[in-house]
């Protein structure tokens, strides 16, 4: 059976057009990802700002087109879908975004988000049926009531807004939900609630998630697989626990070392020298490993060729770093 989502050699390049004065930016390069249909999983795409993780979300959601490569959903290439297939795809691949306020049209009551999907996807044959469906999905996220639907977005709290987005996504019973930083703008108390809904939808409803985040700790708590992006390329990937407990790529090690430990007696670890000028680090090299300028363990060969993913552990734990060339075999 074809996997649910299969991304092959996805590359996205911005800018550099004829009339464009902006420089060429490679947002994503030769990116591969496979999500199986069952069991449902939460796949984390993590990285800093500018790593290409949001580009990936936009690509999967069809907001922007690939420069090269393919995104294949259940055997159908996204770029070649017919109109009807695209509508089906829309229904089955949904999203939850970072800012739970901006996703509501301020002109309409919050009910509008449900009306839209009911109308466009012809989900209900009667008003009563529609109401029941909305009621049902609101219950799943722990909300109740006609009253809340009649409000305007600014009258709801941030947590309510985000939960209602979860309810909307749930109502469509999608196969895949792209969750683009869904908890980075909510308080700690609500964060757990949103993450819990994600876990329940995965386990009880069989929905898979593409969890896009910069926060490795929440990824560690709920994620199954993880891909760590650095400037458009995968630095390290594998099972979340394996990667975070035993990182191999120097970049991932740096990331994890930099997370402040909630314990005053354990100060920031690692070598302070790794924290070189953060802005110099943004400048990537043209050829070779993109992490070269920041890497503490860089070698000459890192400049000559782009490192392939090397297997560094069980269950497809790969790191794109020449440090593992001798001890691991090159993947095909």
């Amino acid at each position, binding site marked *: 059976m074809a996997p649910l989502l299969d991304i092959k050699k996805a590359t996205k390049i911005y800018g550099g057009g004829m009339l464009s004065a902006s420089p060429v930016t490679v947002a994503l390069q030769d990116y591969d990802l496979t999500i199986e249909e069952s069991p449902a999983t939460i796949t984390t795409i993590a990285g800093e700002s500018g790593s290409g993780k949001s580009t990936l979300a936009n690509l999967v959601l069809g907001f922007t087109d690939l420069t090269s490569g393919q995104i294949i959903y259940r055997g159908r290439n996204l770029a070649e879908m017919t109109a009807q297939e695209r509508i089906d795809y829309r229904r089955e691949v949904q999203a939850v975004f970072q800012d739970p306020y901006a996703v509501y049209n301020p002109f309409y009551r919050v009910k509008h988000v449900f009306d839209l999907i009911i109308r466009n996807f012809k989900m209900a044959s009667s008003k009563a049926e529609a109401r029941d469906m909305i009621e049902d999905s609101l219950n799943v996220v722990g909300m109740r009531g006609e009253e809340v639907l009649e409000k305007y977005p600014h009258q709801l709290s*941030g947590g309510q807004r985000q939960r209602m987005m979860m309810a909307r996504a749930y109502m469509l019973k999608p196969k895949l939900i792209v969750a683009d930083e869904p908890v980075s703008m909510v308080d700690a108390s609500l964060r757990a609630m949103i993450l819990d809904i994600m876990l329940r939808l995965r386990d009880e409803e069989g929905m898979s998630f593409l969890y896009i985040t910069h926060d490795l700790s929440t990824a560690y708590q709920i994620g199954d697989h993880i891909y760590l992006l650095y400037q458009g390329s995968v630095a390290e990937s594998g099972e979340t626990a394996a990667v975070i407990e035993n990182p191999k790529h120097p970049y991932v090690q740096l990331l994890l070392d*930099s997370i402040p430990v909630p314990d005053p007696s354990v100060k920031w670890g690692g070598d302070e020298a790794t924290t070189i000028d953060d802005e110099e680090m943004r400048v990537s090299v043209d050829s070779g490993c993109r992490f070269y300028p920041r890497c503490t363990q860089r070698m000459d060969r890192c400049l000559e060729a782009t490192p392939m993913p090397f297997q560094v552990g069980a269950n497809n734990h790969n790191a794109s770093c020449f440090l593992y060339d001798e001890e691991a075999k090159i993947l095909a």
Partner: protein
Amino acid sequence: MTTATTINPADTAMVDRGPAEQDTILDIRNLQVFYSTPTGDVRAVDNVSFKVQRGEIIGLVGESGCGKTTTAMAILRLVQPPGRIAGGEINLDSVNLADLEGDDLRETRWTKLSLIPQGAMNSLNPVMRISSQIKDTIRTHEGKISNRELKERILQLLQLVGLPSRVYDMYPHELSGGMKQRACIAMAIALDPVLVIADEPTSALDVVVQRVVGETLLDVKERLGVSMIVIGHDMGLMAQLVDRLAVMYAGRIVEFAPVESIFNEQFHPYTQLLIESIPSIKEKKPLKLTEGLTHDLRTDMQGCIFQLRCPHVMDICREENPPMRALRNRHETACHLYDDDGVRLH
């Protein structure tokens, strides 16, 4: 992966803080900040009192809307209408800021207390060079200074926060987020203030850059001996940065203690909740579910501010507002759940 445990100079500083105990820089007493709305005053900050000693970093944490930023703005006297300081004293170096007006207030700003703003992205004037924005401050408060001396001083400041000297001639949009934030730090210490308020200094930054900025803050504090109030919601970051931590809920401080003490033992149920909900990269643990801020800040609630969410709520909590009490050495909590020795009553 290695996580080296180094002794931070701040820790040793805490040991001999005894004699410095008297050296209070900032003394806030019963501060109240209200926002007037058509349906009544919102008590954004209600009866907040705390002291900051010379050379220490105080952390102020809580969820959004708890009043932590409003407290900082009140200290800076930057509360915008419809908000107002409704009562209390803000004694900085024995001057009550709440009473200052006009030029007295203007001259106190930045010479005695400065701000590292929340959104460094938008806090720098986009059409002025970094150097001009720092010059602005120095010239305003110190009068005429020769250009050469000024330049030397600014270059020193940039160096102090780890910025290359080319930043001198750059515009804000040419800098990355972390650089802007460090430029703001350089600006904040330009006049050698006694107190720096840092409002979520790292919230919009990537984790590696966050660490760079955090270490810059610690470094600056070490070198200048300046006191700081750091506002944030990231408990991990607080653990790394601050000496003492104040936990705010619904406009009040509910727990205030040295940071080791508070991470070691939390008295207030809200603080317990905050600490438990920190996502960890060390161990997988079940998600701790809780509600957000639940009560209406418009009413002067009778009893404890946390009673609607508290898992241990008692009858007395609905009637009496618990006072701040020291339950351990310098560890203060406002909760009815404990006796004076910090022993849980039920």
